[in-house]
């Protein structure tokens, strides 16, 4: 399943980033950060189209030897990035989409928590659990 899930603010700093296994956390941080390049590219390139067809899912940002990085951007320009093991060929686009949608909903709930100030790092337990479920659950 997903090995790293990140929520990135409009200003491109991480609101939330978690990865398993934790030892190569750093690698994932780099990976996600680099993937923002492609996110920007896609958003600016087909940004117009995206807005038109309400398509938030950016698809595969870029593959690496052992990982696939997928992207999703909300209309408020908050980005979700998900890294999946390449060996995990079972994951099709649709699963990824639905996972992103789940992520988005959960994020919306976080935003609605009156105690959460937008822009802060996300510490919500609910969100955490959701992410965990996505990381362990196998499709």
């Amino acid at each position, binding site marked *: 399943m997903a090995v790293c899930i990140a929520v990135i603010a409009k*200003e*491109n*700093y*991480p609101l939330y980033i978690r990865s398993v296994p934790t030892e190569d956390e750093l690698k994932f941080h780099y990976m996600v950060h*680099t993937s923002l*390049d492609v996110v920007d590219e896609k958003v600016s390139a087909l940004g117009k189209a995206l807005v038109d067809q309400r398509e938030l899912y950016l698809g595969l940002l870029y593959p690496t*030897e052992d990982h696939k990085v997928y992207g999703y951007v909300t209309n408020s320009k908050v980005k979700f990035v998900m890294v999946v093991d*390449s060996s995990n*060929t079972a994951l099709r686009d649709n699963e990824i989409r639905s996972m992103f949608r789940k992520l988005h909903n959960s994020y919306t709930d976080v935003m609605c928590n009156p105690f959460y100030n937008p822009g802060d790092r996300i510490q919500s337990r609910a969100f955490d659990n959701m992410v965990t479920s996505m990381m362990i659950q196998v499709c």
Partner: protein
Amino acid sequence: MDAPEEPLPPVIYTMENKPIVTCAGDQNLFTSIYPTLSQQLPREPMEWRRSYGRAPKMIHLESNFVQFKEELLPKEGNKALLTFPFLHIYWTECCDTEVYKATVKDDLTKWQNVLKAHSSVDWLIVVVENDAKKKNKTNILPRTSIVDKIRNDFCNKQSDRCVVLSDPLKDSSRTQESWNAFLTKLRTLLLMSFTKNLGKFEDDMRTLREKRTEPGWSFCEYFMVQEELAFVFEMLQQFEDALVQYDELDALFSQYVVNFGAGDGANWLTFFCQPVKSWNGLILRKPIDMEKRELIQKQEATLLDLRSYLFSRQCTLLLFLQRPWEVAQRALELLHSCVQELKLLEVSVPPGALDCWVFLSCLEVLQRIEGCCDRAQIDSNIAHTVGLWNYATEKLKALGYLCGLVSEKGPNSEDLNRTVDLLAGLGAERPETANTAQSPYKKLKEALSSVEAFEKHYLDLSHATIEMYTSIGRIRSAKFVGKDLAEFYMRKKSPQKAELYLQGALKNYLAEGWALPITHTRKQLAECQKHLGQIENYLQTSSLLASDCHLTDEERKYFCQEILNFASQQTNSPGHKIVLPMHSFAQLKSLHFDPSNAVVHVGGVLSVEITLWSQMPVPVHVEQIAINVHFSIEKNNYRKTAEWLTKHKTSNGIINFPHEPAPFPASQNSLPALELYEMFERSPSDNSLNTTGIICKNVHMLLRRQESSSSVDVPSGVALEDGAHVLKCSSVMLEPGANKVLFRTQAREPGTYTLRQLCASVGPLWFVLPHVYPIVQYDVYSQEPQLHVEPITDSLLAGIPQKVRFTVTTGHYTVKNGDSLQLSNAEAMLILCHAENRAVIYSNTREKSSDASFRIQSSGKVTSISLPAAPAYHLIEFELDVLSLPSAPAVRGDSNQPGLKESRRTCSEKLAASHCMVTTDHKVSIDCPWSIYSTVIALNFSIPFQTTHSLLSAGTRKYIQICVQNLSELDFRLSDSSLIDTGGSADLQLVPLNTQIQQHIHSQQSVFFVWELKWTREPPPALHCRFSVGFSPASEEQLSVSLQPYTYEFQVENFFTLYNVKAEIFPPLGMEYCKTGSLCSLEVSITRLSDLLEVDKDEALTESDEYFTTKLMYEVVDNSSNWAVCGKSSGVLSMPVAAQATHRVHMEVMPLFAGHLPFPDVRLFKYLPHHSAHSSQLDADSWIENDSLSVDKNVDDAVDSSSIKSRGSMHSASSIEHRGLPMPRLQAFPPGQVFNSSSGMQVFVIPSKEDHVLEVSVT
């Protein structure tokens, strides 16, 4: 007849393949037609309707015509498609029946049978006619018959299988037509055949695929079959369809691998799991890589072979389809998936082999694409290719590390062995690239050949990649590659090259707030800086790392230690400082002032306690912590007066500082706030404002911050300001976490002190917080000693003891024992000394500090108050009772009239506004110990009472009434009132008619006193009296001091009665009562009561022979208009100045109403004729007419003016009249002198009968 043998063209697998069409029959004929045919056939496209609902296509048909041979026909179950003859044509031009019967028919039959035998139904018989032949043959059947024969001999019920082609070699319209007909037929048949046969083939293929679960099934076989189909499509230029075939194969294979990973492995797959022995990348230069294909055919291909071949085919087709970028993208996916699949299948791969394969493949793909696109295209599609570049770079790097080419001391033996093995795996370079200079193969070989070569290639690649990334704006990716490069440089021990990249990357991460990358990059940077010997930068980076919560304690301790070590070893070189920003070392959390309002007087002690949050993981010993303070004197700033400071500016004295910006880019740009001050310049001569403006005192900060923020970790050149004023605190041990540091300072110069910088020194290291924000200030003030005296109540009352508060602000003066205040007080104000007085001493901030008693000595005019000892900048506060004596000599001093009288007048002016109290000022001059000049304070007492008097007469008897009104808020007790004649004439006495000795007078109440005035001899014209009444506040029963009575002085003049006026009204004669509307007679009798007195020695007096007379004027006025005065209402008469001299005047009056009517008013005036020629008696009426107004005014004035109006004032009034033409004057009598005995009398009037109106008014 047999046609000459023609060799079959060999089948070669190039895209030059064409569908095969066999030709039987007359070969010569065919060869003659062939050129036209082969050239005509492709000309027109033909629509191909296809099975399985695939979209119809227009295709141009070509075919490869070969001579018919039986062996060409496929045997049963033959899978070959390329060699499959799709159509068989029989050519003949026979035109006579004999020949037909003789040869052609048999030949045809034979041909047909062969076809039947191979169940091939795709055939066509062409009968060519030309007129030429017809000519020389004479005995011929009608030509048609041949065709018909053939038709009914062979094509039973499919007559269209036999066509006629007439005169093919001529060009006539007829020829054209027949050609077209023929070609169309040919094409149709071909397509039909394609559809039929391909369809059949596909069906077989599918059935074969369905078998794939069966044990014997082999992927390679199937591969070959489906590829056959692909070839055919390719042959038919249907590249899309061809590509689909390969993609299906690709997908199928991948699926197998996945399933294998999932556990169910097909046994044929195990074959692909053989260890990888050769890794000479992809080959994309040939349309078909036959070697690999054979390997597959022979089932000897490895996974890499299969993949390579498959991709090379896809690549070729894609390039046909003009989709090079898809090639690039697919390539990347392919390479990744290959690596994955090898892992999945647990294929044993020698280390580095894959890297080689990938590297070569990347370059191969790139070169292939470059081969078929021009520069511009490539540049505009970098986004597609850059991935491959990056991948290649990574792989090369990996190889470099693997083969020990990335170390300053080249590869060791085993590295070399490894390299050799790897190169071996590459095999020999392929012929097609052998002669190209830049082939991937050569590149790799060279790169691995030597350290230098590797470096060159690696750098080229990296730079190329970085450049591409940057060019398409993928900055982050570029930085990331840059970091690898930096790593490489570090390995190569050339940190100066690395630093640039690290800085670049770090800046990027900081800007976007990615904590972990920041930490990691910093660590690398630290190492780099250490190597470079950039001590400051290194120390700062270390401090940042030491405080980095993302590091382990060990690491943090390590970096902290680095700093400390440096500090300790540098001690030998004193004087040389290294300045570092503080925020990484420790953070200023809060600051606390004592005194809390951060205001202290000169010489006072101020303590500042700061809370420093040490970021270091271990306790750090700091030699000194110092706060630089900026001092500014703010003259002419009202805020800075001692009073203002001590009263206002009350905070709790704790300032909290905002947290250091978290690594959010949002909060990154935290510039220091402007430190602005208003500035006034005043001209030295007169303190007038010349210029004013605003000064920013931290411009340097702002400017520096901006340029430093561009390069992050280099110390932002924090300048050490060394101002004169510094708060120091030496040798502090900063524990990790919160530390409290206390600074004490003694205030010297008055002014405002602003904390500017905070710096902590560890050895030569100075950690500096360049700017303390929010702005923190403390104020030092000095103050002149002062004395304030103010009443406790809002107004002081005269005559009774009142409390007054004395406040001594000691300021810089210290009150010693024996210091005293010398009050040279006016006698009019007593300071009442009590047995003992207590003073309270406060600190300047109004906290009570002590409580002391003090003495007061009064000696005559001077009272001295000996102050209790008090330190500087304190307040001594005490209260004293003072008593202001009413009507005091001091006050009377300035005017010869009685003080109260005078002040009473001042009041009477104000009376109009409200009943205000008369006030008297008492000025007291006080000598203070701290100054040679004496302070003069004015206390202002109000007299609680207002008094008025009036004279009352009854005939000749006289009374004096005095009204005392209490204006104050207090109630008083009045006692022993007395009225005495200050003239003190013995024969005059004042008899009090007051009963009570004591009585209360409440606030805003009045009390009246009456005395009768008696005399024996002729009374004096004026009488001076003094009224005095003792009073004391009703509240207190007993007062310590005896109070002075309240006195009121006044004089009464001309109080003796001279004339008595008596009026009588008589009903008309013979009538009992007065009656309305009927005249009655009014008799006024004026009687002189005394002989000549000196009071009426005035112009009125005229002396005729032996006795005096005076002229009087009477006037009857009825203001209530009850009466109508008939005839003269006034007149002048001369009255002899002698007792009992009487004048009677009669006049007619008519009552206008019935009832008891008051008498009309009779007035009497002195008549002062003007001294002039005609001093004769003139008619008063006419006279009054022309001046009555002025007179009346004058009179009224005189009447209700109080007796105080002296004659002098009357003179002035009349003298105003004199300015008019000269005429006699009237003068009112002082009220005392005329007594109207009939005032207030009434007469009864009855209504007259005939007067209806009046009747009404009566009843």
